[in-house]
């Protein structure tokens, strides 16, 4: 587990430990933990971490916010923290102030579109929107003939068809049918839907990496407790090697995600090098979620397959997060096209650019 080396992460981890203990949450069938957790996070200014003070937020750096998302992954936090952070960040790009309460971003998939009609209203149907049902507002990226705009929309005016992702979190279909936004402003020049997807993808990558860190941790601990054939299963070489592979997947996810976060936090533009970092993070973390999660379950045996055990809180969420803001297949195709378009002899210079 990465040490907390900043105050944002320290604050968050304390709240997570107090109010989002995975076992307590898992035992709570009525979701009574949700409201106090969200309240504590809000009071600490964390959901609007990426919103500057003058727009209603707490003005944390991109780097601190990314570290916060990694910590949220380690606790498999199931409130719209990442979504509200991304929404606040997007609104702030157009100098739109963030309201209080839960938010999420539309669209959440690279191929979905919200269009801005000449009368100033917004229309479109977008799928797989995380926590749309829980959100009070949407931060919307929208297109018209003149370009890209960013809008703040009252969630109550949209049609939300509730759904669940593979990790049992809200993943909804949202339809805007000629909805008038609360505020709308043009997006800055460098920002388009790809930027938003890469940003969301890196957020998910950090969450997956965090979940894998915890899966490794609880799997190692379990293997040192569980006795079979008269010894701890951690003493079997086959189990050791599986856990070593899980450590490798966890390490790869962490390295890819934190590197991409660092690249974005220090970027002046979303150039090819940043694109490589962000797309690679989503691809590699998604692969790690599959391979690593399978090992964590294998080590736990039947107990890890029960709804009472906390393992699925990490394993299923990590799998679900693969789908948001472009799957690994989507990004692999896009990255492959980029590499091919640059040409064979430009591949190494791209990989070696940082």
């Amino acid at each position, binding site marked *: 587990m990465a040490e907390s080396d900043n105050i944002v992460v320290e604050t968050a981890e304390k709240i997570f430990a107090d109010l989002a203990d995975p076992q307590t949450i898992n035992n709570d069938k009525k979701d009574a933990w949700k409201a106090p957790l969200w309240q504590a996070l809000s009071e600490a200014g964390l959901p609007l971490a990426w919103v500057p003070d003058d727009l209603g937020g707490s003005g944390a750096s991109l780097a601190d916010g990314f570290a916060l998302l990694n910590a949220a992954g380690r606790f498999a936090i199931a409130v719209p923290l990442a979504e509200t952070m991304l929404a606040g960040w997007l609104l702030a790009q157009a100098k739109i102030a963030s309201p209080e309460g839960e938010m999420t971003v539309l669209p959440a998939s690279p191929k979905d579109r919200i269009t801005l009609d000449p009368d100033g209203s917004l229309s479109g149907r977008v799928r797989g929107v995380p926590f749309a049902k829980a959100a009070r507002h949407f931060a919307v990226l929208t297109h018209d003939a003149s370009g890209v705009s960013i809008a703040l929309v009252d969630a109550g005016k949209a049609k939300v068809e509730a759904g669940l992702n593979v990790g049992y979190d809200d993943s909804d279909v949202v339809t805007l049918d000629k909805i008038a936004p609360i505020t709308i402003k043009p997006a800055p020049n460098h920002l388009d839907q790809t930027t938003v997807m890469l940003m969301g993808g890196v957020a998910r990558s950090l969450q997956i990496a965090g979940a894998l860190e915890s899966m490794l941790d609880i799997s190692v601990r379990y293997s040192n407790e569980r006795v079979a054939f008269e010894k701890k299963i951690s003493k079997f070489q086959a189990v050791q090697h599986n*856990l070593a592979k899980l450590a490798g997947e966890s390490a790869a996810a962490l390295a890819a995600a934190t*590197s991409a976060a660092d690249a974005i936090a220090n970027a002046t533009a979303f150039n090819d090098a940043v694109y490589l970092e962000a797309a690679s993070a989503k691809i*590699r973390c998604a692969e790690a979620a599959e391979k690593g999660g399978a090992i964590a379950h294998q080590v736990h045996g039947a107990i890890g397959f029960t709804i009472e055990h906390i393992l699925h809180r990490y394993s299923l969420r990590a799998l679900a997060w693969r789908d948001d803001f472009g799957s690994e297949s989507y990004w692999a195709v896009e990255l492959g096209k980029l590499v091919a378009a640059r040409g064979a002899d430009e591949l190494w210079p791209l990989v070696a650019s940082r």
Partner: protein
Amino acid sequence: MTAALRFDPIRLPPKCEELRKEVRAFLAEEMARGTFNPFKPNREDTDVPEFSRRVGERGWIGITWPKKYGGHERSFLERYVVTEEMRVANAPTRRFFVADRQSGPILLKYAPEHIKMDILPRICRGELCFAIGMSEPNSGSDLFAAKTRATKTDGGYLINGTKIWTSSAHIADYMIAIFRTSQPTKENRRHGLTQFLVKMKQPGIKVNPIGQITGQYEFNEVVFTDYFIPDDHVLGEVDGAWKQATSELAYERSGPERFLETYYVLTELVRAVGNDPDTRSAEGIGRLVAQLHTMRRMSVSVAGMLQAGKEPVVEASIVKDIGTVWEQQLPHRVRDLAAFVEETASNRETLERQLDFAIKTAPKLTIQGGTTEVLRGIIARGLGLR
């Protein structure tokens, strides 16, 4: 929590990028003068003494070592850049690479001053080739089963026994080897081995080449018969080599050579599919590039930790485990993706020839320098499982 793996996002400082440009320009010059062909990783002669000397002249061997021994006191990150550029270009580094990576650092740490003054500057000038004498016919991964004896005699030791799978022994000027000076004890089966500096090309040493499945002859059997090594060639503690072996592994196991060995087939695949690939090719290339990028970031991160004076043994083992498995699978993945490449692709022959060689090379990658099984054991130990 138990697992404290760290892979901080190290970024290479600007002076590394300056150096990278110099190395690329140098390699382009060397290709132009015909020293090596980057498209032919399977060339017969991977030992090019004059290339070694020119790399030495540039100051790129022993780059991190103290100036008084011919080094340049530059950082591990700079060494990293030189290594990866050489590797990607398929440059013939065989003659100096082992000395630069591990033999030199061992001498720096354990050799007496007059030997350091004698040998290290010559390594830096690209004049010396080193081999590593670890494996024996009945001792491979199980290093501490080594039986080749070093028997104390007047002023030194007499060596009798056989080392095997010794890369470059046929061209090496020196070998750093472990020999048995005492029997293991009941309490510690690792006790009793000592590390020595061995001068090659002397009477009492016979080097027998061993053919490899690639068609090359790069490793050897080395037979010692009453071969004399003077006392001052003992490196470190007598009977205590086991204490010295582990901390150096981070240097040996995390470098770019641990995932770039078969990289050339990926470049050629990208060339073969052209600028507008179909979806299948694009996805395959995208995944491979994402995996490659991730390993490089992990590997650079370990280099950064080494530069900061840490000993990231577990992290380094993870890099080698993931890296070597990847570079082993790469030729097969590229073969899959190349299955539908047009007959007319301009580099089709090059790609096929390279795949042929890379597929034959692949099996060794997860064996040499610490098998996958050994690495996973080290990682498991780091996780607190053993």
